[in-house]
């Protein structure tokens, strides 16, 4: 499984003419697992250091502009007759937290779900325009969606752990990759540590995940998403079902994960966006109204709609 995963990356890059010499020197997947193994042994801070250069190497090597994780070009999404998103163009920068805000039904979740093609699961969803991840159009024919979703992880609005034990939840992704038992265990430990859940659950890894509290469940879902080693983490209102203490723990977690990952978060909570996001995008009725550094967007919004929204006068 792991071999196949690695090969498919190579083959596709080769076919796309993006096969570059720098990448040739390292086989991406084994190296990634190797670096993760280091992390598992030596606490979480070894993680970004071990992983960063490798990630950057592929950034610089890939066709996309340096520092851009996801580029959206003229993206529109229709659900049957209704247009959920129209003509969005934006760039999500690497290793930053990008927040999507806007009133309900403005299309921000739809956009988020375009980044890992979760919209494919909704019957009748039609996507036009381009979404470039690492410089490649993820809606191009022949793209391996499962591999895309491994590299672009997702955390949902309501905590949705599987009806399995805590361990099996986190191990689910690594097992899909076909890792050996020992490697799976290492990844589980490491992911739970990264998600700041390890100390709370280390003595009861075999207990059912659904027995955890809501906040713990959400951190478990984050750990589960981290366990497959994604480069981008999409979070769809991850704190809307949680109490304030759990929310603040998740926010701390997001800030600590920023060093390793690119994070895109949809939120209804403007204070939350202000607290954690480096950049914030404001959506209204399926359009991207304004996309700016968070501080600027909240302090000096250009558009009157943005101003009305961030000052709480509508939405």
């Amino acid at each position, binding site marked *: 499984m792991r071999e196949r995963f690695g090969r498919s990356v190579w083959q596709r890059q080769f076919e796309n003419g993006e096969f570059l010499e720098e990448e040739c020197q390292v086989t991406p997947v084994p190296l990634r697992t190797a670096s993760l193994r280091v992390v598992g042994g030596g606490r979480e801070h070894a993680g970004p250091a071990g992983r960063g250069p490798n990630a950057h190497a592929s950034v610089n090597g890939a066709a996309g502009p340096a520092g851009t994780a996801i580029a959206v070009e003229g993206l529109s999404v229709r659900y049957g007759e209704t247009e959920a998103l129209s003509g969005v163009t934006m760039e999500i920068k690497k290793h930053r937290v990008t927040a999507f805000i806007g009133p309900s039904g403005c299309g921000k979740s739809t956009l988020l779900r375009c980044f890992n093609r*979760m919209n494919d*699961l909704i019957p009748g969803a039609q996507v036009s325009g381009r979404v470039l991840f690492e410089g490649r159009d993820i809606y191009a024919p022949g793209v391996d969606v499962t591999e895309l979703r491994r590299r672009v992880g997702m955390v*949902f609005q309501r905590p*949705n752990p*599987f009806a399995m*034990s805590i361990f099996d939840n986190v191990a689910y992704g690594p097992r899909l990759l076909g890792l050996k038992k020992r490697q799976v265990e290492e990844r589980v430990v490491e992911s739970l540590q990264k998600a700041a859940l390890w100390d709370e659950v280390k*003595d009861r890894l075999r207990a059912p995940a659904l*027995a955890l509290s809501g906040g713990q469940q959400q951190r478990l*879902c984050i750990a589960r998403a981290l366990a497959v080693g994604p480069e981008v983490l999409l979070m769809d209102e991850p704190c809307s079902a949680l109490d304030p203490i759990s929310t603040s723990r998740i926010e701390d977690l997001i800030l600590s994960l920023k060093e390793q990952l690119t994070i895109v978060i949809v939120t209804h909570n403007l204070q939350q966006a202000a607290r954690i996001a480096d950049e914030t995008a404001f959506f209204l009725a399926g359009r991207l109204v304004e996309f700016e550094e968070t501080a600027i967007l909240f302090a000096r919004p250009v558009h009157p709609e943005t101003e009305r929204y961030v000052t709480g006068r509508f939405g």
Partner: protein
Amino acid sequence: MNRGFWRSGDPLVWTAAGALALCLIMLFGLVGLVAFRGLAYFWPAELVQLELADGSLVVGQVTGRERIPAPGGTGAAARGRIQLKVGNRDVYGLDFRWIEEDLITGWSAPPELAVVERLEQGDAYGVPVRLLQDGEVAAQGDEILERLPAMLAEAAALRRELRRLERDVVGDINRRIEAARLALVRLERQAGGGAASLQGVDPHQEAAARGQEAAARHREAIARAQAQYEQVLQEIAALRRQLSGRTLVLALAGGSELSVDVASIVRIYRPNAMSPGEKLGFYAAKLWEFLSSEPRESNTEGGIFPALFGTVLLVLIMTVAVVPIGVLAAVYLKEYARDGWFTRALWIAIRNLAGVPSIVFGIFGLGFFIYGVGGSIDRAFFPERLPAPTFGTGGILWASLTLALLTLPVVIVATEEGLAAVPRAAREASYALGATRFETVWKVVVPGAMPGILTGVILGIARATGEVAPLMMTGVVKLASELPVDGLFPFIHLERKFMHLGFFIYDLGFQSPNVEAARPMLFATAFTLLAVVLVLNGAGIGLRNRIRARIEKAGPG
């Protein structure tokens, strides 16, 4: 005020509670009746001696009491009558007698009265007076009951030996003869076919010579087996002689005497002289005999073990057959099939299939499984046994498959409901981790639907355990001489006919030559069937709860 009363909803609540109460009364009434009558069967009932108005004496166990409707209206005082099991079928002809209570003048329970359970002719009731050995008096009075147990044990051992000879040894000889005969038939068929294709060439003659040699060998084997058979017959005759010769003489009520062959006595006891502890011990022994031994006296006495075994095996084979097919079909329909008019029509068909009368499934099983599949198997693999069928006749395999078909809709519908109950969020979580549809279905959705699937299996088992009608067409019998599982290769004989508790009840209740005598056994069997359903369901529910606990609620640590 009145409006308020109706709007409060109280009348509806009371009606609903009443409906529930009615259900409970019916349910507990049925189960209570079956349990009471079934479990009372094993209790050593008191033997009473009645003096009647005409001066005669009657001995028996009271089995019932009812009022006689007064002739000519309600004016006359109602009279009662009791039903007495008087036993001694060979003397009185009938073992039950109704006696009007008015005619009873005396009622006593003498401790010396004994119940003699016999292999044939039911129980005998009387006072043991003499034990004869080859016509000579060997013991009298109380001495009899001291000497009898050893004799009964000896007789039981001899009977077991006799049974071993008659069934296992003779059966084995029969099988050898049959195998040799079938080998001969095969040789003849080969020789016939060979003669047509190879015309008088050398290899043919060689083959023919070899064939004749083999045929001679088989004929010799048959002759050897037959000689052995003669020998075994002599052994059996010797054993029979050894068994006979001892007679117990009982004094019956009214002065006559009854001679009982000791070899035919199962047990003898004096219920009126037993202490409560002895009665409990007796109860346990009877219950164990009921569960572990084979029936006798056309199923009205003895045990029900073959029927119990057949029922459980039938349900197990059915479960093994129905669960994979049902679950896979439901998974395909729910998770993979495109939701169009065809799929919807299929769902309607499946749901309606659950309403098809079970007898129709029985007829289908007979036509498709037995005549169709079984007949083809016979023609392809057992041609030398034809016209005697092997798989082309009713057997436990075909009955199980018929029941599997019967319960298939239940399992499919329950699985579908279980799959539908798996939250969309769980599927999304799996997809978001890079799982394919296949991985999502088999690692998240199906395990999540497991409690629902097991509920379906439990419902299916409950339905199948009680089914009788389809079995009557697919291989259930009143008395099967062999179990479907035994020590002979290949150990599991799924082509064999089998016994079943449900059919046992039907047969006992409606086909028995002596319905009155069969009645206690009937209740005991019905209770056993209820217990089997309960145990099988309990196992399923226990399994489901364990799975639920593992996936939902916190365990320790």
